[in-house]
């Protein structure tokens, strides 16, 4: 019966913790499955901790059983409780001091400890989604072979060699000739990113002379150019002309500041059109539709000229057929056509395997903290049972011995060895000693 209770208590301790932690990690496993074993880094750490605890449990159990003494059982309990604490909450208190800085460095400050701490599920989903978005974009621009189904790529994920190749190689181009080139000329990208995109910042971003590595290849099979005029009731897939084969599929590309943020900018003209006389509005709209493509095309050429911005910004005109207010000028970055994500997302994607390893630690961390108390309590309970077992055997064996020693003791009359009891305060010791001394003399 006692063995059964001990097993039950043991299971309620660390094994239950593992169960809870694994259950909480399911989202992380699902989202990161194509990244291989790094996704399971958290569980591996947990397994190591469990092994340490298990070994202590077995050693103390065997020792207690063998010696059958209460003292050994007591020592075993202390050891087990200490190990339980160290390998649950204890180590993490120290890791928690170091981890935020490590995470900050590893992600260049784009992912903060406190943002993931309790939010690991959402973070795993976000990071998982990055891979999916990347594959979808590269399938649309035919960087991924369209004779294979999109679903196949999505299923293989990071395990697919072409996907892995594109993620890392094309990020190098975006990083070196994009982000690093921009940050190499001062704080402007940072300011733009922090909702401080002023006209001077924009001018700096457009006109600062940047250092570009022109030999760096960018792997892109087809150009995918957005149409000059799009309609608000159009399917976003139809925003583009058909893919056109590139002369050199490995030619380098240049990046604009819009590519760093990755999302289009819209300058609304809707308000102006709403106030306009309906006849004039029709005239203006028809004029835009007839002359628009040619004019916008020229403006795109001007922007992309090396003497101006030097990188394509896909200017376009959006016409609000469903809602006239939706009319406006739209500035589209080249991320979607080129099959890259915005800089931050792409930087995460580039080190997603490591990020998944880090994220996988968080559910483990949380349960080690929470269930640590239970593991310690169960260890104490197990220790108590062991002590009880030892005591029962003690009583049977040592009864005679004890009686004998008591008789012996009475002959000794005055024995001061009991004053070594550590439970006595120095005052009590002195008092008892003096008292006995007085009795002896009397």
């Amino acid at each position, binding site marked *: 019966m006692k063995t059964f209770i001990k097993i039950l208590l043991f299971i309620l301790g660390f094994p239950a913790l593992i169960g809870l932690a694994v259950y909480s990690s399911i989202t992380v496993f699902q989202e990161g499955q194509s990244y291989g074993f790094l996704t399971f880094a958290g569980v591996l750490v947990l397994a190591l901790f469990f092994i340490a605890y298990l070994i202590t449990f077995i050693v103390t159990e065997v020792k207690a059983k063998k010696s059958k003494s209460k003292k050994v059982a007591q020592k075993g309990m202390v050891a087990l409780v200490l190990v339980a604490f160290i390998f649950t909450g204890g180590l993490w208190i120290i890791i928690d001091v170091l981890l935020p800085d490590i995470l900050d460095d590893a992600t260049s400050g784009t992912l903060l400890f406190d943002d993931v701490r309790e939010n690991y599920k959402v973070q795993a989903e976000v990071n998982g989604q990055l891979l999916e978005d990347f594959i979808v974009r590269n399938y649309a621009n035919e960087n991924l072979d369209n004779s294979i189904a999109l679903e196949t790529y999505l299923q293989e994920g990071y395990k697919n060699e072409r996907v892995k190749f594109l993620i890392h190689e094309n990020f190098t181009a975006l990083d070196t000739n994009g982000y690093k080139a921009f940050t190499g000329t001062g704080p402007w990208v*940072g300011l733009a990113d922090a909702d401080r995109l002023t006209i001077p910042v924009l001018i700096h971003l457009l*006109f600062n002379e940047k250092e570009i590595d022109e030999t760096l290849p960018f792997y892109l099979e087809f150009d995918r150019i957005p149409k000059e005029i799009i309609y608000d009731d159009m399917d976003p897939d139809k925003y583009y002309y058909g893919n056109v084969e590139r002369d050199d599929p490995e030619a380098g590309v240049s990046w604009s500041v819009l590519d760093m943020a990755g999302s289009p900018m819209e300058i609304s003209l809707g308000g102006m059109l709403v106030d306009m006389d309906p006849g004039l509005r029709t005239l203006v709209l028809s004029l835009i539709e007839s002359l628009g493509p*040619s004019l916008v095309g*020229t403006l795109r050429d001007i922007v992309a000229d090396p003497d101006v911005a030097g990188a394509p910004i896909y200017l376009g005109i959006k016409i609000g057929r469903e809602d006239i207010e939706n009319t406006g000028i739209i500035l589209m970055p080249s991320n979607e056509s080129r099959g890259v994500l915005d800089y931050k997302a792409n930087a995460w994607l580039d080190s997603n395997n490591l990020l998944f390893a880090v994220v996988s630690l968080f559910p483990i961390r949380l349960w080690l903290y929470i269930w640590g108390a239970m593991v310690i309590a169960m260890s104490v309970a197990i220790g108590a049972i062991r002590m009880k077992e030892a005591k029962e055997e003690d009583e049977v064996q040592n009864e005679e011995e004890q009686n004998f020693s008591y008789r012996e003791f*009475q002959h000794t009359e005055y024995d001061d060895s009991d004053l070594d009891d550590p439970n006595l305060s120095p005052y009590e010791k002195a008092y008892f000693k003096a008292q006995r001394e007085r009795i002896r003399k009397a």
Partner: protein
Amino acid sequence: MLKLRRNITAARIFQILFYALGFPLIVHLVLVSSGPLIDNGLVNSGEQQLIGTINYYTGPAVMGIYYGLAIWAIFIVGQLLLKLLVRKNRWTRTAIAVVLAAIIIVGPILYIDFLKKPEYDQLQASFTERGIEVQTWGKSASKFGEFTEDNQADIDAFMRTYNIQKFNGKNYSTMNSDGSLSIENKEDAAWYSPNGMYADGYVFSFKQANKVLKDYYSNKAAYEAEGKNIEIELQQELEQLESNPSSDWNKYKNGASESSFSMEDFSYITDSDEYEAAYGEDGSARKYYLTEERLAQVLSVLGRELGENESIGSLLPAIGSFIDLGELDIMSLLNEDLSLEILVDVVNGLGLGGTLRQLIDPESTETEIDEAFVFGLLANFSSYQSPMTYPVFYFIEDEGLRDFAYANYYAKIHGAKIGSVLVGTGESPKVGHITMDASGVPAPSQEEVLATLDEFEAFETISQKFYPLFALRENLVKFGAFATLCVFAAYALTIYIDKQYSKLTLKAGVK
């Protein structure tokens, strides 16, 4: 025997309880009272340290807590000494300990009330003289927590108005555009370039925004008091520095020897060629703004590409029906020779020069524009002050005017760059978050700004010096007698426990 034991245990629990209700409780309460002070940027300079997930605080606001701990520590040392010196008589020990407790509780209160109060009154008087209202000692001593929270609300409002996100400022890159590095000055809560100006990516700290606004408005007000307009004075001074060939500014630009400067202790940042290195041909600063050459390149591309576009030709007659183009043939202009000179001629030819001039300066009587006018328009957006050279205002002799010139630059030009405009311009001035898609908030008036700055200054001076003491004093006053009583109770219980022990008689050999 069992009963005695139980009495001893109970007495021991009470002994510890009373001890905890003495000095430890006071320290804890001072900590609670100091909470608002620690959170307030002006009292504590926004100082909060982080080691991993552990926060701890430094700065003036925590001083009250340290004083509390010091008082407790003195008591502990006193207790140890007593134990050594007064060995036998327990009641003597108790009496001395209680007296010690009372002295170290009452002493600081008296010190604060009699020696610190005159200091406070003096400060208060000096602020009142300047027309700044400061609360009386009595009110501050009791309501300092509330005042601190109110002040924090004012700080938050100020930071929202001027779009300042971090109390201690933020530098978006330690590297400036031209590759020079900026250095943080923690005391100023600012990042400086080698020329002593703010770093390119530095967004004002609360303190620096205060300083810029103060330099701007107080000097402006001082000139106004003398019936002068500081902006006109500055313009004249700058024109003089530019036009006078022997001005320090021109000497500096030409790399003259240091002994020929009228300025004391002047020294070049790197060497006498630094201005030439930044703004000369191929200069390090020239890559970072729209220079004449760069504009010419852009216009050339514009002319070429538009000229090659056939739809433009069909659009022109439509324009002609709105604006009288006269004999102007726009298509003939659209080629790669398009330049600023040609554009200026076209505008003047169409008679639009005067209109444009008046758009910028309603009082202008000029009827034509020139290239300098166009560059004047662009200068606000595309000039680049090299971090490796001094600006022209560095050479202004009058200190007030110089401070104003710097503040003017930081508030309007640096502020416009980083999206934290401090001083607005034009008919209905706007400040704060002015970017491509945000238009800022209406600017407060000069009087409002100066009044706010005065309040901040008075609060900072008073609160840093006195509020931590008030946090301590408040709790010493409220709980001093109680703590002394608790010390006595703890000691009395010790005696009681000892007495209980003496009642314990012992049978030999029994454990």
